[in-house]
C-alpha cells in the first residue's frame, strides 16, 4: 500500500462524489492509496481515473468498475458486474471473486486478473494487455480480439477466440468449442514464461505445460469465395 492512506465509505455518497474523490486522490501522486468500503454492488465505481492510484475495494461492485482508467492498481475482494476494466490503458486490476460479462472489453494494456469465473465475451475486441482468469470463462471469450493475451486456467465456453485477428489465448481445461478461424498452436518459451506469471497471479495450482494455445488461422483476413463455409459460420 502507498504512503497516504484514505478510506472512502460509499454508503452515503453518490457515484459522482466517489469518482471525484478518487480523481482528486490520484492527483496526490502514485503512492496514494484508497480503501473503498460499502461498495454495495453499485455501478461505475472508479471510472475515468487516468492517473496512478492504489485502490482496495472491500466487497462487491456492479457494472463498468475501473473502466476507462489508466495506471490504476485495483484489488476487489468480491465479485464484479459486467464491463469490468473496459478500455483499460495500463495498470493492474485484480478481482478475488467472479466477474460478469465483457470483462476487459477493448482493453489496450495492463493486467486484469479474475481469480474465479467470468461470463461471456471476456476480452471482446481486446487490443493489448493480459487477462488472466483463474476459473472458467463464458462463451465467445476473446471475440474479435486484436492483440494481447488471455489465459484461462479452467474451462472455456463455446466459440473460444471467435474471429480473432491477432493475440493469443491459452486454456488449461476443456474448451466447449473453438470459434470461427481459431486454431491451436504450439507454446513458445516466451509463452511458458508468461504463463508462469499468470498462474501465480491467478493463485491456482497449475503448470504452464498444461495449457493449450489458440491463435488466429487468419482465414477471415481476406474474403475468399471458395471458403464460403467459414464465412457462413463467422458472425
Amino acid at each position, binding site marked *: 500500500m502507498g504512503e497516504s492512506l484514505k478510506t472512502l465509505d460509499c454508503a452515503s455518497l453518490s457515484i459522482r462524489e466517489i469518482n471525484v474523490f478518487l480523481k482528486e486522490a490520484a492527483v496526490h501522486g502514485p503512492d496514494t492509496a484508497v480503501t473503498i468500503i460499502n461498495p*454495495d*454492488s*453499485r455501478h461505475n465505481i472508479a471510472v475515468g481515473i487516468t492517473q496512478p492510484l492504489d485502490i482496495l475495494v472491500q*466487497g*462487491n461492485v*456492479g*457494472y463498468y468498475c475501473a473502466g476507462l482508467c489508466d495506471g490504476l492498481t485495483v484489488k476487489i475482494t*468480491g*465479485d464484479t*458486474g*459486467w464491463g469490468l476494466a473496459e478500455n483499460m490503458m495500463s495498470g493492474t486490476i485484480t478481482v478475488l471473486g*467472479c466477474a*460478469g*460479462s465483457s470483462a476487459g472489453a477493448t482493453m489496450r494494456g495492463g493486467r486484469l486478473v479474475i481469480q474465479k469465473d467470468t*461470463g*461471456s465475451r471476456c476480452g471482446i475486441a481486446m487490443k493489448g494487455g493480459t487477462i488472466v482468469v483463474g476459473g472458467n470463462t*463464458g*462463451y465467445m471469450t476473446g471475440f474479435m480480439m486484436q492483440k494481447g493475451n488471455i489465459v484461462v486456467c479452467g474451462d472455456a*465456453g*463455446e466459440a473460444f477466440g471467435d474471429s480473432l485477428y491477432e493475440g493469443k489465448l491459452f486454456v488449461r481445461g476443456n474448451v466447449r468449442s473453438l470459434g470461427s478461424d481459431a486454431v491451436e498452436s504450439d507454446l513458445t518459451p516466451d509463452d511458458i514464461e508468461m504463463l508462469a506469471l499468470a498462474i501465480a497471479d491467478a493463485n491456482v495450482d497449475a503448470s504452464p505445460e498444461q495449457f493449450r494455445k489458440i491463435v488466429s488461422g487468419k482465414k477471415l483476413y481476406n474474403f475468399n469465395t471458395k471458403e464460403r463455409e467459414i464465412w457462413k459460420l463467422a458472425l
Partner: protein
Amino acid sequence: MCGIAGILYFDSDEAASPVGRALTTMSQCLQHRGADSAGVAIFSAPTARPSLQVILPQGIPLPEPQFIDTLAPGRLSGLREIRDGFAATISPLANSNDRRIDLTSSLEKGLPGSVVTSLGYSMSVYKTVGLVERLFPTIAPLTGTHGIAHLRLATESKIDPAHAQPFWGRPYADVAVTHNGHITNYHKLRKKMEARGLTFASQNDSEIIGILIGEQLATGQRLSAALEAVIPTLDGSFSFIVATSQGLGVARDRFATKPLLFVETDELLAIASEQQALHRLLNENIKIQEIQPKEFRTWEKA
C-alpha cells in the same frame, strides 16, 4: 433495458413466505433499470375458485356491480376494488376440464379501454405506471409461495397499466411472465396466434411469451417441456422469468445480452437482473450464478 426479479420459497406449504417483502427489496434495487412502469405477480395457496383482476382506463370510476353482472351474468362474485380497477371471483365452469375461461372478451368489450390483467387460482398481479414504490404499500405485506417483478424502460409500446409487466399469459390461468429484451418476430407470431383464436391485452412484444407458454402448459406439459418447445420459436433478445402455480422458469437467448443472475439455497431461489438485488435480499457473501446463453431452467414444486 428493464429490470426483472423472481423469488421462490421451496418450503412454503403454508404459503406464508414473505414474497411481497422480497420483491419489494429487489425491485427497489432494480428501479434504475426502468422507471416507466412496474409490476409484480404473487402466487399463494390456490383458492377453490379462480379470480380475475381488471384494470380500468385512467379517470373511469368503478362501475356499479349490477353493470358488471350484466357483462358476465352469474359468473362473478365477491367484487372488490383494487388499485386502478376491480377483482372478482369466478363461478364454476360448466366444463371443469376446460382451462380457458373466456370472460375476458365480454368484460373488455363492455368496459371499453379496460384490460383483464390476471386470472387464476393462485396468481395476483399488481401494476402501476411510474416508480415501483407506488406498489409497496400494497405488495410489501403480501405472503405466498413465489412471485416475479418487473421494472420497465419503455421502448416501443404505450406506457399505461395494461402495458406494464408482468403479463398474464391470457387466457391460461396462473401464468405470468416478466421479460427483459425484445422479441423481434412478435408481429409474425401474433398474427399466427390470432388465427388460432388467441387474444392480446397489449401491443407489447413481451406479452406473447406467456401466452405461448400457457398454450403448451394447457396441453398437459410440464413447464420445462413448455419452455423447450417455446424458446426455439422466439427471435430477438430475451432474459425472462415465467411463473406458474408449479414454480418458476427462466430463459436467456443465445447471445445473452440481457443479464440474469440467481442464487439458490436450501430455503429459496432468488433471481434478478443485477447482483445488488440479490445481495440486499440475502447478504454480501452469497454465491451468485449466471443463467448461461441458450440456457433455460425450471424450479418446479414436486
